[in-house]
């Protein structure tokens, strides 16, 4: 086709009218120089068209202005996503590592974070968080740039009737084109070709497309169903594996992970002279926190004798006595009883069963116990006595002292004098 006559547009039709016949999608105008393209673009722009484009084999300076293209809004999308990425990175780290789950009881447990100290750093510290914030910012900004660019250009576009034209192939070689889409609100099947003919074009060609029934080809439907059936196989296999049993040992896909080359505690090994795999600490050294240099606090002894007083680092307060009560009720009350009278449920049951060898627990209210120095009680808790097992490994030193303070409170409560009762409450006593 050549010439710029509107008759060559081949009886333009409104898109979508009539099935099976060719439908006009737009008009392609060809130019032979970038200068002509710019002049034409300015006129199309001034005529008020909005759905149109230009095509050239190389970037043409000034085409943006000639087409009336405003500066892209893409940077705002990138900025917004960058800011979102920054905040997400920060919030992610705060939530997973620093948020106190007690303040968010309504969040399901498996969505709550877990406070985890690393290298003695604060749970939430900006220097450590910056790499993740930075990566999240860059990631979202870059995705925003790529996806935003594609979306604003209506890409990916799988089908374009324009590409079927032989003439259009020269757009990548030596010709320049203006394409006006028939969907443009200003598009007029009669008037538009006439207007385009005045642009000094080398040629005008209508872009037509034969519209078919719109149904999927049968081959495509069968192939799609086949792929869906194939995709069901892996979940079916997994479901079968969950219900069937096998006598065979499991597969070792990664053998190193199932059978690791490592030593266990107490294992023998020929390498060292003492035949042990685990190494004892170097002579004269202690692990951190293992130094127990204060016999008063750690053993309840002063100069070898049981201490009569609490060590100075133990503060007797209502809080510490309540702590002692709580620990006492957990560790001591099962035998000694909640009141300390030696009538805990274990003691009662042993009495009922008449267990041989059973030594009844001492009543802590017994004058013998009351008169014992606190260091003696500490020693008993730590190392056990008769059938009472040692509790030194289960109860921390500070808690042992708290328990002793609570035991002293119990003793006092059972041997109280009138003066111990506050004056305003004495009248209630009968």
């Amino acid at each position, binding site marked *: 086709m050549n010439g710029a006559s509107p008759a060559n547009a081949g009886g333009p039709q409104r898109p979508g009218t009539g099935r099976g016949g060719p439908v006009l999608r737009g008009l392609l105008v060809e130019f032979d120089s970038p200068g002509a393209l710019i002049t034409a673009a300015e006129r199309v722009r001034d005529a008020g068209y909005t759905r149109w484009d230009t095509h050239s084999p190389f*970037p043409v*300076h000034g085409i943006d202005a000639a087409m009336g293209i405003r500066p892209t809004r893409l*940077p705002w999308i990138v900025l917004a996503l960058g800011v979102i990425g920054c905040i997400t990175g920060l919030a992610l780290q705060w939530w997973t590592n620093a948020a106190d789950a007690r303040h968010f009881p309504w969040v399901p447990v498996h969505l709550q974070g877990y406070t985890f100290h690393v*290298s*003695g*750093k604060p749970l939430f510290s900006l*220097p*450590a968080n*910056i*790499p993740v914030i930075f990566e999240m910012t860059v990631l979202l900004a870059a995705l925003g740039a790529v996806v935003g660019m594609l979306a604003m250009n209506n890409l990916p576009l799988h089908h374009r009737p324009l590409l079927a034209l032989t003439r259009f192939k020269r757009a990548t070689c030596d010709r320049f084109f203006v394409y006006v889409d028939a969907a443009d609100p200003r598009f007029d099947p009669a008037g538009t070709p006439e207007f385009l003919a005045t642009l000094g074009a080398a040629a005008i060609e209508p872009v037509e497309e034969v519209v078919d029934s719109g149904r999927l080809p049968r081959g495509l439907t069968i192939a799609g169903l086949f792929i869906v059936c194939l995709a069901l196989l892996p979940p079916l296999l997994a479901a079968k594996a969950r219900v069937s049993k096998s006598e065979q040992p499991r597969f070792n896909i990664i053998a190193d992970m199932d059978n690791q080359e490592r030593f266990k505690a107490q294992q023998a090994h020929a390498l060292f002279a003492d035949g042990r795999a685990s190494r004892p600490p170097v002579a004269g050294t202690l692990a951190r926190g293992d130094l127990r240099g204060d016999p008063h606090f750690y053993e309840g002894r002063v100069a070898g004798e049981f201490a009569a007083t609490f060590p100075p680092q133990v503060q007797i307060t209502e809080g510490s006595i309540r702590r002692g009560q709580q620990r006492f009720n957990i560790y001591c009350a099962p035998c000694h009883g909640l009141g300390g009278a030696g009538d805990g449920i274990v003691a009662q049951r042993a009495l009922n069963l008449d267990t041989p060898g059973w030594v009844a627990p001492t009543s802590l209210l017994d004058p013998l116990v009351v008169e014992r120095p606190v260091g003696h009680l500490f020693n008993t808790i730590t190392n056990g006595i008769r059938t009472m097992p040692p509790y030194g490994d289960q109860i921390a030193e500070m808690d042992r002292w708290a328990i002793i303070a609570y035991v002293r409170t119990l003793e006092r409560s059972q041997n109280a004098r009138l003066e111990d009762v506050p004056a305003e409450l004495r009248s209630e006593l009968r």
Partner: protein
Amino acid sequence: MNHAPDMSKDVRPIATGRAAFCAAVVGALGLAAGVLFGLRDGWDVFFRSYLLNYTYVLSLALGALFFVMLQHLVRAGWSVSLRRLAELVAGTLPLLAVLFLPLLVPLLAGMPGVWEWASAEAVAHDASGLLRHKQPYLNVPFFIVRCVVCFAVWVGLARYFVRRSVAQDATGDVQLTVRMQWWSAPGMLLYGLTVTFFAIDALMSLNPHWYSTIFGVYFFSGSLVGFFALLALLVYFVQRAGRLTHAVTVEHYHDVGKLAFGFVVFWAYIAFSQYLLIWYANLPEETVWYQPRQGDAWWTGVSLLLLLGHFVAPFAALLSRWPKRRKGTLACAGAWLLFMHWLDLYYLVIPRAHGHGHEPAAPLHLTDVALLAGLAGVCVAAILRAMARQALLPERDPRLNEALSFENI
């Protein structure tokens, strides 16, 4: 685009006689004031301050040398209109080699307040033994050898590239461009090595117990920030003087702004990389460098000002397209970044680890200002003098047309 009719006025040298004279006077007065302060307050303060301001002007010239070689290396077309300005700055390197000589005095005198490792007494009394251990590298003769190599490389490269570029103004010989392109690659390798070694020797060895493998890159990144800031300012004033008004367009400003922005981010990336690893590992032999820099209110303030003024503010200011395309705005950003680059070097040079060397009398001494005026004045006078002698544009560069018609998409 064709601006040929206007170009003759554009490239004419500027009659800078008076300005150059004024700059030289300011320089001489600054240096003299610095010496007087040295006589009054001790030479330790003087030499630390000299080292600070010397590395400042040197880093700008080194940034210019990098820019010139980079343009040849990547065969850039757009930058031809700006290259002569960078060549003028790089042309001060022979002068800077001479200005380095005073720094050999504290080295040979073994003043413990400047380079602790140069003082035999400090090495002998070093309880850690590290100074003794590092002596095969950190000793005065070897230091001087390395400095001679560095300056030989820089002066050689600067003279090579500047002379051929100026020679091309007369002959228009394309072969000169071809040869400069060839030499820019090995020149770049030599540049990378010498700048790294110089940064380690002159600045990092101020704290000889400490080391950071990224230190050379840190110095380099700051230098480039300083250079692009200077370039923005320089081209702004040259245009105000009625030169390069057609050869340099808003498009060139835009690209200088982009490069300044890029190196601001690069500097922050490098500075943070160094900080994060040291902060995280928290090893005494590494944190010792940050300890005096975050120890008191003054230095904490300087550190925070660097974070905000050397990264956050210029990042926000230069992120958009329009500030880079407005000449006055970009020149203001350039002036600010030039000050920030000075502050960055101040932060590198002046603080001293407690218990090492002498405590500074005050964190900011008048000597710092006097010697800044002195050294900058001398270098500005040299640049202005060179401006009066040669064209401000490589007018017969084969890629000049590309530069003149350059447009950012």
